[in-house]
């Protein structure tokens, strides 16, 4: 850009120099033309910017360390050419706030689009938010810029690498072996036990219809399955108290996903949860199969952490999610004070990778976490 401006300046200087020294009217015409071109492109660019559109297309998932390609498509439906379009693209890893910016320069003929291919990727897992921050139209010498209002966003999930921890679910000494304990607060998926009886609403599964009661009341009655909590595990990722170390965040994310996968492989019903630090919400998702786990990963990969805010453990206590599970895995960098209160509801296994160590916690570090977490007793 600067080189082009300097080129223009030199060219203009040469023309004016020739005009001044030799009195050449042709050089004067050229100098005037060099001024008129950028000025004349202003109204053209003002018109183009109203119609210019930009879009981003990307593959949804990539692996860590691999490049994922995406394209920036610019469309110029006007009859004027856009001599120079400069786009500022920002890629941000929403998990660890890592950012990269790139400027892209292209041009567009009239009534035609232009597509530019770019690649992005990260050595850390997370959700990459790629956006066109700015599109500026310039004249051919890149002297006068007209900013466009168009913007576009796309997302690419850098999938975490997983390992296979052996998980042993140790029953609670307080639980009764002969029967499961079911949640009183929310339905589950165990059809052998009924959570509640209610009238049919569209969307209910036919398997839920209670035919006897339907016949008795002469209207469709359904029963909701119950949620057994004795062998239910809550995997909770604390996003408060984070130092911002990307390797630690990466290790935690991989631990969470690997743990969920092992739980799924072991046939243990579990719920995954984390705290949304932007909105101060506790997010809980019951995972029944691999599809649900895969589906939840993009959301999990944008769970931005903060150093200080309302803790996830505190939010969990407020939402009352803790009583749903007899076992809880609490993954954090620094344990929050409220985590001790969670132990009232069940056994809490803490997996910590920060500087604070607790006697009851399993400590791991970003370099050796796969070895350190190869065996986890819940």
């Amino acid at each position, binding site marked *: 850009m600067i080189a082009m401006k300097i080129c223009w300046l030199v*060219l203009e200087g040469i*023309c004016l120099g*020739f*005009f*001044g*020294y*030799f*009195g*050449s*009217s*042709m*050089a*004067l*015409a*050229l100098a*005037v*033309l060099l001024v*008129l071109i950028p000025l004349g492109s202003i109204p053209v660019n003002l018109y183009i910017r109203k119609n210019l559109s930009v879009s981003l297309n990307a593959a949804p998932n990539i692996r860590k*360390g691999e*490049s994922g390609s995406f394209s920036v498509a610019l469309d110029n439906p006007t*009859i*004027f*050419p856009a001599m120079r379009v400069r786009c500022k*693209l920002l*890629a941000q*890893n929403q998990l660890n706030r*890592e950012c*990269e*910016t*790139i400027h*892209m320069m292209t*041009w567009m*003929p*009239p*009534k*035609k689009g232009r597509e*530019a*291919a*770019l*690649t*992005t*990727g*990260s*050595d*850390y897992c997370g959700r*990459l938010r*790629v*956006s066109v921050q700015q599109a500026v139209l310039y004249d*051919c010498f890149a002297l006068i810029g007209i900013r466009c209002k168009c*913007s576009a*966003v796309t997302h690419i999930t850098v999938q975490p690498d997983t390992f296979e921890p052996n998980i042993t679910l140790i029953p609670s000494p307080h639980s009764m072996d002969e029967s499961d304990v079911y949640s009183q607060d929310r339905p589950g998926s165990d059809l052998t036990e009924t959570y509640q009886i209610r009238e049919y609403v569209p969307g209910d599964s036919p398997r839920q219809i209670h035919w006897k009661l339907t016949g008795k009341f002469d209207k469709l009655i359904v029963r909701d399955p119950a949620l057994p909590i004795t062998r239910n595990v809550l995997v909770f990722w604390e996003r408060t108290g984070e130092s911002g170390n*990307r*390797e630690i965040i*990466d290790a935690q994310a991989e631990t969470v996903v690997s743990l969920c996968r092992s739980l799924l492989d072991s046939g243990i019903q579990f719920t995954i949860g984390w705290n949304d630090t*932007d*909105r101060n919400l506790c997010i809980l998702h019951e995972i029944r199969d691999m599809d649900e786990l895969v589906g939840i990963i993009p959301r999990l990969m944008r769970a931005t952490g903060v150093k200080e805010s309302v803790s996830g453990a505190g939010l969990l206590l407020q939402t009352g999610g803790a009583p749903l599970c007899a076992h809880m895995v609490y993954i954090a960098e620094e344990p929050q004070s409220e985590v001790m209160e969670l132990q009232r509801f069940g056994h809490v296994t803490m997996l910590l990778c920060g500087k604070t160590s607790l006697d009851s916690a399993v400590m791991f570090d970003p*370099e*050796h976490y*796969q*070895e350190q977490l190869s065996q986890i007793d819940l």
Partner: protein
Amino acid sequence: MTQVNKKGMWLRPAERTQRKNSDWILHTVTGLLTYTALILAFTEMTGFDQIYPVLWMLLIGICLCALHGILLAFQRQGVFYPGVLMLLLLLVIFFRQQMMDGIGLFWNQLGDTWTASTGWVLPELETQCGPQERSACLLLFSLLTGGIGSLLCSMMVSVAAPVLAAALPGLVLIGTTVFGEQISGGYLMLVMMTAVLLLLYSGWGKKKASLGILINWVAFVLVACMLVSAAALPAVESWASGFSLLLHENLHARKYETKYTTLPEGVFTDYRDAGEDAKPALIVTMEKPEQMYLRGFTGAVYENNAWNPLDTEILAEYEDLLYWLNLNEFNPNRQFESAIFNMETERNQITVQNIGACSRFYCLPFSLSSDELLHAENLNAESTASDGERIYMFSVVSSGSGLVGQVLENLQASDDEAVMNYRKAESAYRDFVYRCYLQIPQEVLDMLEQKWDSAANRYGASDKLTSEQAQACVLDFLNQCFGDDSEVELPLSQVQGSSYQYATVAALTLRYFGIPARYAEGYVITEEMAAEAESGASIEVDSICGQAWVEVYQDGIGWIPLNLTAGMDEQESGDRIDNSDTAKDPNSESLNPKEGQELEENPEDNQETEEPDGGYMTNVPKAIAWGGILIVLIILLLAVILMVRRKIILSAKEKKFRDENCRGAIAWIFADTTTLLEKLGFDRGNGSMQDLREPVRIRFGDGYAAEFWNMIDLNSMALFSSREMTEEQRDAMLEFRNKTLHHLLSWTRWNKRLWMKWIECRY
């Protein structure tokens, strides 16, 4: 377990994908045409007229462009650039010397063209090749140039076709300006067609695109043609040359002149008589004081009432001759010294300190002996910005004017080898002088031809006069023109009666009668001044001594002031042409009788010279002043436009905010507040406004954040709820908007505030 070296994320352009277009034929044709147009225009402009090298250049370029096209068709273009570069490198390695000679030959050819058009001499490169090897060297140079040119064209067509489309005519236009060559219409058409094809190629995908590009390009070409046509108008050309002249004059005045400088240097357009106030010009110190004509500016060509030096085109035409003279150590400034040879003559050491004269020219007499001028720093404190010589020393042949006849005899009698060499060189120079210093402009011929002929009547036809008869005719004519009751219309009427007019008429008259003459300006140390001065004492030469005289070319000796010309003293000793006296004493009986009268008759001239600094107002400050006023007016107009625009936009906004439909008004106000928040850096992007609550709270506190939350709800109600909104709610929203605006004003810098106020009309 392997340790992974984690580095973070990246974002970069993808590696260039293989070309999938099937339009390789079009690409090849475009490349070929571009290369051909470029080379033909290049050779046309630079005057590179050897047919075979040009043909080879074209051939190699066309072959390479075609090869690139074929490789493109087979998707193997990746090998093209390294392969061709390798070949060119081998060519350079094996034929290094020949290649360098070829470049040297081309450079010298280019230099000749450049010199012919601009008069600037480029340094000449020495070549080692003989005449028979020249064509081979040029051929190799053509191969190299053709290879590089075709590589660049192929690459530019692939990568940046529109840039090439704009650059191609631009280069041609610059080339024609630089080399001053008029490119023929055929080449120009080829260039323009290629540029259009390039643009078409770059947007070939759709018919509509091609049409659009064509329309745009035609519009651009029309504008360019209009500008070029406007530039070719005589009025514009005249204005441009006038501006250039004015610029030169002012630069010249700033660099070389002081407020005491009075000589016009051959240009009388804005000449103002310095009057009788003596202004210091030179301080001359002589070992042996003597009469001396210290000439500065000399004029060879008279046109449009001004004397100019020889045109650069003429000098370029005689470039070989002048170079040969230089090689033979023939210096026209020291010609008299060269002509003396072994004669016993005395030397006179002279020091000149320039304190008020134009320092661009040395003030030197015709009898200069040694030109080993001693440069000194600028000693004139009043002209700190000036440049040029301010003090210098030289020696002259003492009493040179009295030796002219003797020198001529000596030259004719001597058969010394050095004398013969001198005569040879002088003969060549004389030929140059006779070709260049006999021109008379047509308007002067129309004005004076009959009078000149009538003056020559007593001797016969004007073109068959002897030298003595011609000189006598000249003196007769000058006496007739500058007599007391003369009513002859003469050139340079604006300086009527002055030595400038006298010298001009004399020079042109001498030329008419076949005597090469030129106009000279400078300072005259008269015999009286010399007589009063002591040896080694300073002689103050002031502006009154500044005048013009005519110099004639004395065969064998060189340029000599007219009254020193051999033979003239004997013939007309009582009626000598000596305008130094007339210049000093306007009341004396002389050939310039009107000089004193003119001073009395033109009181305005005297008034103008009474300016305190002795200078005069030039047109450049006026132009700058007018330009400044124009710029101020444009700025004022823009300011008014901006004010009116802002008023209209704010009025429309206010109308929307005060709309009776409170739901609409609230939505408008909130939308406006959203843009203000965006300016503050709270860009929601595609997300919800509620996402901004926390960042807003962190920056502006809980109170503002709570209000922001309420306003989001209020806006949602206004947009989606069926409830009626009240004026109080609208006012609350307006108050929130004002708070946001207040935050924005306090958080942004003054320049952005100005931008938002006057350009974006936010408030």
